[in-house]
C-alpha cells in the first residue's frame, strides 16, 4: 500500500494542491482511503493527516471504508423518483441482498444513494464504478447484478450504447444525448480553430471588447456579464492568471453541460483558450464533476488532438507567446463545488467550502491568483461569438439576454432532452415544444429556482424575467408536489450544505422536518407561517448561493401552490404533538425488565 501511495503522490509532484487527484487515484488503486493511507499521503505532501482527512471526509465519492468491488450509486433526485426510483431501489436491494449504505458481506457489491447525476432525461440512472447506467428497469437491474456476480467487467455489464460520441470507443456509454433542438450558437456547425486563428490576430483588449459587445452573460445561472468579468481579471495586478471552466453541473435537472462536453468539447476548450488569451492566462482547468468520469479518456484525447493541431500548447496557431494548456480536475461528489469559490478551494485540494467574497476570483482565485470562472456553455458561446462577431450575436435573443440558451428539460413531457432556444421563449411555448400536457408546475432553474403555476406560464425565459442555468423540470398534474418535489429538494439541500454557516446547516434540516410533519398530517397553519419566517431567515444569513436559495422550493410553492399546503394542515388546532409515550419508553423498559405504566 505504502509504495503505491508514494508512487501516486510522486505522479502529481507531491503537490498538495493536487490532493483531489491523489486521493482519487489512491481510491482507484486501493478501493478506499484508510486512515493509514491518509497518513502516508500526508507524509508525502508534507501536510498534516488532518488536512488530508478533512478533504476526504467532505466528498461523497471518497470512501473511508471499503464500498465494494462494484460500487453502485443509485440516483435519488426528483426525476429519478418520478420515473421509478422506488421500484429500482427495491430491485437492487433484492438482487444484491444488500441494504442501501452497506456492502455485501463478501465485499463484492456496495449499494449507495447519490444526488442528481446529470441524467434527468433518462432516469432512473445509477453509476457503477464510473460507468453510467440509464433508464433502469427491474429486469435491467437483475441483468446487471447477475453480470456483477458472474465477475463481468463494468463495461460489459450493458450492451446498449448511446448516440453520437457516446458510442465512441473511448466513451462506450449507454448515455443518450437527446439533442432535440439545435440553435444557431452552440449546436450549429463549426470548423475547429477558426476563432483561435482569428483572436491570434487581435489585441487582447479587442477580444475582451468583442465579448463585452456581445452582451454574453454567464450561463451557469447567475448571468454575470462575461466580458466584464474577463476585463476585471485582465486588469488585476498579479500577472499569473488562470481560466477555469465550471463543469460541476450539480443543480438537479441540468445535464446540458454533459451533452456539450460529449459533442462540442473542442469548441468549449477553444473558448477557454480564447479566455486565456484575453486575460493573459497560460493554464486552464476544466473542473469536471466525478459523475462524468466516463468522459475522461475521450476528453483527454480531444485535448491531445488539439495540442497536435497547434490549438493548445505552446505558440497556438503559430503565434509566438500564445501559450495555453488545459488540464482536467475532477470533483468527488459535492454540489456546493459548483459555487465558484468552493470550486476553487476544491481544485486546490481542500474541502469545497465557499470563500468569503470579496475578494472575488477575478482578483484572488485559484492559488490566490486572478482567475476567470465560467460555465461550459459560456465558453462554448464565446467560440461562436468570435467566429461570427458580436453584432451577429446580439441579433439573437432579447434586448437584455442576447444569444441562445441550452435548456435541460426533463420530467413529465413526451420529449425530454436538450434544446437550444433563443432567449425570450415563454414557458407555454416551451411546454408545447416538449410535448407536455396537463402540467401542474414547472420548476425553473432547479431546486434553487422557482416553481411556477399555470397562471405564470406566459412568463419568458430570459434574464429579465426567468433567469436560468437551463434546468427545467416539468411536473404533471398527477404528481404529489409537496412530497415528491419539495421534500426531495429539501433532502438534497440538507445533504449538500457544506455546513460552514449555522443557519444553512441547521435550518435546512428544520425546514425539511416541518415539511415532513405537514405531509404526515400533523401540520397547522402556524407551521406555514413558520416555514415562511425560517425560510427568509435562512436566505438572509448565509455565505453562499446555496443557503441563500435553498428555501426557494418552500417559498415559491407556498406562494404559487398555497392551496396544496392548506389542504394538508389541520385548521382546528394550532398545535399538534406527535410524541408517543408508550413508544418512547418501550426500549428502556424492556431492557431493565419492567412493565411500562402509561397513564
Amino acid at each position, binding site marked *: 500500500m505504502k509504495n503505491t501511495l508514494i508512487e501516486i503522490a510522486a505522479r502529481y509532484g507531491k503537490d498538495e494542491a493536487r490532493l483531489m487527484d491523489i486521493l482519487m487515484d489512491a481510491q482507484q488503486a486501493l478501493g478506499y482511503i484508510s486512515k493509514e493511507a491518509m497518513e502516508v499521503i500526508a507524509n508525502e505532501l508534507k501536510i498534516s493527516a488532518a488536512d488530508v482527512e478533512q478533504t476526504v471526509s467532505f466528498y461523497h465519492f471518497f470512501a473511508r471504508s471499503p464500498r465494494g468491488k462494484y460500487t453502485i450509486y443509485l440516483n435519488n433526485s426528483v426525476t429519478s423518483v418520478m420515473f421509478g426510483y422506488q421500484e429500482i431501489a427495491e430491485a437492487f436491494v433484492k438482487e444484491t441482498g444488500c441494504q442501501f449504505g452497506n456492502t455485501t458481506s463478501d465485499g463484492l457489491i456496495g449499494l449507495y444513494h447519490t444526488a442528481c447525476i446529470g441524467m434527468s432525461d433518462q432516469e432512473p440512472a445509477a453509476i457503477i464504478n464510473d460507468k453510467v447506467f440509464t433508464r433502469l428497469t427491474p429486469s435491467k437491474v437483475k441483468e446487471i447484478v447477475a453480470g456483477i456476480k458472474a465477475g463481468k467487467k463494468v463495461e460489459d455489464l450493458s450492451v446498449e450504447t448511446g448516440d453520437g460520441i457516446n458510442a465512441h470507443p473511448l466513451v462506450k456509454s449507454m448515455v443518450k444525448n437527446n439533442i432535440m433542438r439545435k440553435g444557431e450558437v452552440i449546436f450549429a456547425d463549426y470548423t475547429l480553430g477558426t476563432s483561435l486563428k482569428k483572436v491570434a490576430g487581435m489585441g487582447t483588449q479587442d477580444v475582451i471588447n468583442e465579448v463585452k459587445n456581445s452582451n454574453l452573460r454567464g450561463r451557469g445561472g447567475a448571468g454575470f456579464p462575461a466580458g466584464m468579468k474577463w476585463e476585471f481579471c485582465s486588469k488585476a495586478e498579479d500577472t499569473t492568471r488562470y481560466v477555469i471552466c465550471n463543469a460541476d453541473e450539480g443543480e438537479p435537472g441540468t445535464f446540458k453541460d454533459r451533452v456539450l462536453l460529449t459533442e462540442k468539447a473542442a469548441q468549449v476548450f477553444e473558448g477557454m483558450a480564447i479566455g486565456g488569451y484575453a486575460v493573459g492566462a497560460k493554464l486552464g482547468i476544466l473542473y469536471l464533476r466525478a459523475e462524468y468520469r466516463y468522459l475522461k479518456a475521450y476528453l483527454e484525447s480531444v485535448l491531445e488532438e488539439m495540442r497536435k493541431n497547434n490549438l493548445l500548447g505552446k505558440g497556438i496557431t503559430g503565434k509566438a507567446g500564445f501559450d495555453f494548456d488545459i488540464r482536467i480536475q475532477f470533483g468527488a461528489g459535492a454540489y456546493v463545488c459548483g459555487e465558484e469559490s468552493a470550486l476553487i478551494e476544491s481544485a486546490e485540494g481542500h474541502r469545497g467550502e465557499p470563500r468569503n467574497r470579496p475578494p472575488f476570483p477575478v482578483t484572488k482565485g485559484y492559488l490566490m491568483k486572478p482567475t476567470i470562472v465560467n460555465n461550459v456553455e459560456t465558453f462554448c458561446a464565446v467560440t461562436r461569438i468570435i467566429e461570427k462577431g458580436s453584432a451577429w450575436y446580439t441579433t439573437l435573443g432579447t434586448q437584455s439576454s442576447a444569444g441562445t440558451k441550452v435548456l435541460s428539460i426533463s420530467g413529465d413531457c413526451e420529449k425530454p432532452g436538450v434544446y437550444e432556444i433563443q432567449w425570450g421563449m415563454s414557458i407555454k411555448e416551451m411546454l408545447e415544444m416538449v410535448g407536455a400536457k396537463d402540467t401542474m408546475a414547472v420548476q425553473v432553474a432547479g431546486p434553487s429556482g422557482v416553481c411556477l403555476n399555470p397562471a405564470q406560464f406566459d412568463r419568458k425565459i430570459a434574464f429579465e424575467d426567468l433567469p436560468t442555468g437551463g434546468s427545467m423540470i416539468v411536473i404533471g398534474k398527477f404528481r404529489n408536489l409537496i412530497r415528491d418535489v419539495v421534500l426531495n429538494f429539501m433532502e438534497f439541500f440538507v445533504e449538500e450544505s457544506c455546513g460552514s454557516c449555522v443557519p444553512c446547516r441547521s435550518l435546512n434540516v428544520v425546514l425539511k422536518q416541518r415539511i415532513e410533519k405537514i405531509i404526515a398530517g400533523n401540520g397547522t397553519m402556524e407551521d406555514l407561517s413558520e416555514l415562511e419566517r425560517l425560510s427568509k431567515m435562512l436566505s438572509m444569513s448565509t455565505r453562499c448561493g446555496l443557503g441563500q436559495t435553498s428555501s426557494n422550493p418552500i417559498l415559491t410553492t407556498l406562494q404559487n401552490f398555497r392551496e396544496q399546503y392548506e389542504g394538508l394542515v389541520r385548521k382546528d388546532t394550532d398545535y399538534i*404533538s406527535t*410524541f408517543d409515550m408508550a413508544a418512547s*419508553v418501550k*426500549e*428502556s423498559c424492556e*431492557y*431493565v425488565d*419492567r412493565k411500562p*405504566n402509561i397513564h
Partner: protein
Amino acid sequence: MSKPIVATTSLAGCFGCHMSILDIDDRILKLIELVEFNKSPVDDIKTFTKQCDIGIIEGGCCNSENVHVLKDFRKNCKILISLGECAIMGGLPALRNGIPVKECIEEAYLHGPTVDGVNTEKVLPNDDELPMILDRVYPCHEIVKIDYFLPGCPPRADLIWNAVAALVTGNEMELPYEVIKFD
C-alpha cells in the same frame, strides 16, 4: 387587581437557569411586588394550588416524569416559556440522542467509572416508582405547545427579567442584543 401568578420547574436541566433567575439580584424584591409564585423550587410549593398565568420551564424531557410535569404545566398555566438551551433544544442531556438507550443505561449502571466493579450483581433500576427513560431527550415544544423561547445556557438574568416584566406589564419587551446569548 390580583398579581399575576408564576410557576417554574426544572426538568432535565441542571438548575443553572434557575440560578440565572436568582441572578436578577435586588430586582427580586421588585419581582415579588409584581408577581406571586405558585409551584416552583423558589418557594418549594410542590403541586399547583391554583391556575397560573406564566409557567417557566427549564430543561427538556428525558423521562416520563418530565413529560407529566410539563403537561401539568401546560394545563395549569396560560403562557409557557421554554427557558434555556435544554428546554429549547434538549441541550447537554440530548448528547445522548443517537446513542442507543441500552448503551446509556449500561454506561450509567454497569460500566461507568463510578459503578464499574461496584454493581457486581448488575442491578438495573426497574422499580415501578421510578420514572421511565425516554428513547431520546425531547425539547419541550415537541411535547406541548410553548409560547415563548428564551435562549441561553443559561439565559442572561436581564433577558429573563425583561421577558417577565414585559409579560406582566404588557409593555413591549426590551431586547438589546447584549442580553440575547445562545451559549
